[in-house]
């Protein structure tokens, strides 16, 4: 069953078409990887899904609701959580307070929000820095805090925008395991944008590849990684696999 359905989604910024008739479906419980070269429109698609930008044409349906023109906060309330590529911590609040802000989306009371936040803290391995001001967290912590804030709103669908970028190898392993746990332990559907191929190829069930705003390939990681259009988009059309120096 599809939880998110995007139909002919288009976004124009003046003369530039950033997203060009993209259609995709996300099934309940899966991890969908969204890949594409820099500037291909991945983050723009996220920004259209949660109404951060107004949609030029096309429709977005989430869990039976038409959310195409819904305000951002209502989309979040319906159950789409997202992280930002350029992280947005609430800097002068502590880590746990940041997460509590998210938790208040479903909790009315201070103690209820605190309880949810404590669980999420542990889940994202942030319990050691709970009292720290979010503004003084190092980058790995901030990336995990992005996930934690979104998780605290108890989403059905989580949009992860480059949550592994800028991490060292150890932090990367931890980030991957958190993302996997989100699906297996919490049962949350995930759409993930990521540049690090090692991450996206290992955790995605399906990959949707775009270039210059348009879909170029879709399928399992194995299929997409040998797709000529994907290779052309990433490496140039005159690139031939057999010409690789190490082949």
């Amino acid at each position, binding site marked *: 069953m599809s939880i998110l359905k995007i139909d002919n989604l288009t976004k124009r910024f003046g003369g530039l078409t950033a997203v060009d008739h993209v259609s995709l479906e996300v099934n309940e419980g899966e991890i969908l990887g969204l890949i594409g070269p820099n500037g291909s429109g991945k983050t723009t698609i996220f920004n259209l899904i949660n109404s951060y930008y107004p949609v030029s044409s096309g429709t977005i349906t989430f869990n039976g609701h038409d959310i195409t023109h819904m*305000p951002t906060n209502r989309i979040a309330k319906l159950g789409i959580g997202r992280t930002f590529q350029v992280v947005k911590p609430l800097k002068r609040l502590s880590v746990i307070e940041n997460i509590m802000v998210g938790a208040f989306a479903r909790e009315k009371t201070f103690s209820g929000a605190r309880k949810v936040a404590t669980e999420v803290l542990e889940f994202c391995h942030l319990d050691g820095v709970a009292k720290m001001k979010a503004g003084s967290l190092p980058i790995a912590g901030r990336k995990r805090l992005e996930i934690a804030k979104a998780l605290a709103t108890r989403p059905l669908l989580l949009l992860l925008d480059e949550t592994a970028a800028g991490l060292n190898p150890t932090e990367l392993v931890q980030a991957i395991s958190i993302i996997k746990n989100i699906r297996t332990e919490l049962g949350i559907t995930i759409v993930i944008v990521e540049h690090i191929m090692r991450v996206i190829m290992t955790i995605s069930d399906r990959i949707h590849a775009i270039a210059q705003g348009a879909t170029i390939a879709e399928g399992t990681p194995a299929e997409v990684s040998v797709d000529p259009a994907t290779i052309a988009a990433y490496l140039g059309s005159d690139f031939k696999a057999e010409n690789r120096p190490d082949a």
Partner: protein
Amino acid sequence: MKKYLLLEKREWIILGGAALAPWIFGFSPYFQGLLILVLMWVVLGNSWNLLAGYTGQVSFGHAAFFGIGAYAAAIPYHHFKISPWWGLLTGGLAAVILGYFLGKLVFRLRGPYFALGTLASGEILRLLFGEEEWLTNGHNGILYMTTFISKIPYYYLILFIAMGSLVAVKVIMKSKLGFYFLSIREDQEAAEALGIDTTKYKNIALAISSFFAGLAGAFYMIYMGFVDPEVVFALHNISILTILVGIIGGVGTIWGPAVGALIMVFIQELFRSSFFGVGPQWVSQLHSLVFGALVVVMILYLAGGVVGDWDIIRKKFGKKRVEGQG
């Protein structure tokens, strides 16, 4: 810290001290008058702090709410001889209604533009209430014989309102509402993505803030027995002084406005009275200059205000033992 009926032990001690304060200095009405002024500024400071300090919407036009509260008490008296004491009910309400309509305009603006929008709102009201003589009696103002000669009833009334505003802010900041206000201050876009209707919660912050400012305005009318648009809608003496109370005391701290009010009223009086009459006359002209200098010093060295940077102050003055303070 153990809590007794919403307040901590230390706060009950301060409240007790405040309740006894008018009896010291030999029951001096002059001293009592100063204390009343301090408490009125505590209310205004708290009101501003909730909107600007906690929700991040820096208002330069709090005189608009203060003034409308004062006139809500004064206008029915002027036309129908209805007691200004009703202003304690209508003053806050009038300010909330004004806030609702002003909010529709100024919340379209962000950052410095929001500040300018609020500043303009206050100024427009000042001119409007000066010109519309049929309603407001214009620059002649509205005069009313105050009910009590003693200052004591007014003192306890404003003490009650000030404590009310303090407790309200304290309770709000420990609730969902408070967390939402803070998240709007920190990052509106992040707040929206977390399911927070930022426009709605900014309006709630404005409503609570304007309510207390309007209440302070109504109190002013009852206590002073006189309103004039140039006084209650004053840019310098109300709007800017409100901001100074917040900044000096500590933006976004519970006790900041109270401490700020104490300091500002003291300094203002110190200079206006030429060091309580012992200094030369020209000293009385200096208070604006001193306020300016004080703001420069605060922003350079104590950006968090006296309460926000209390730890820094303690270190500077040689106390070795620095603990967390609440």
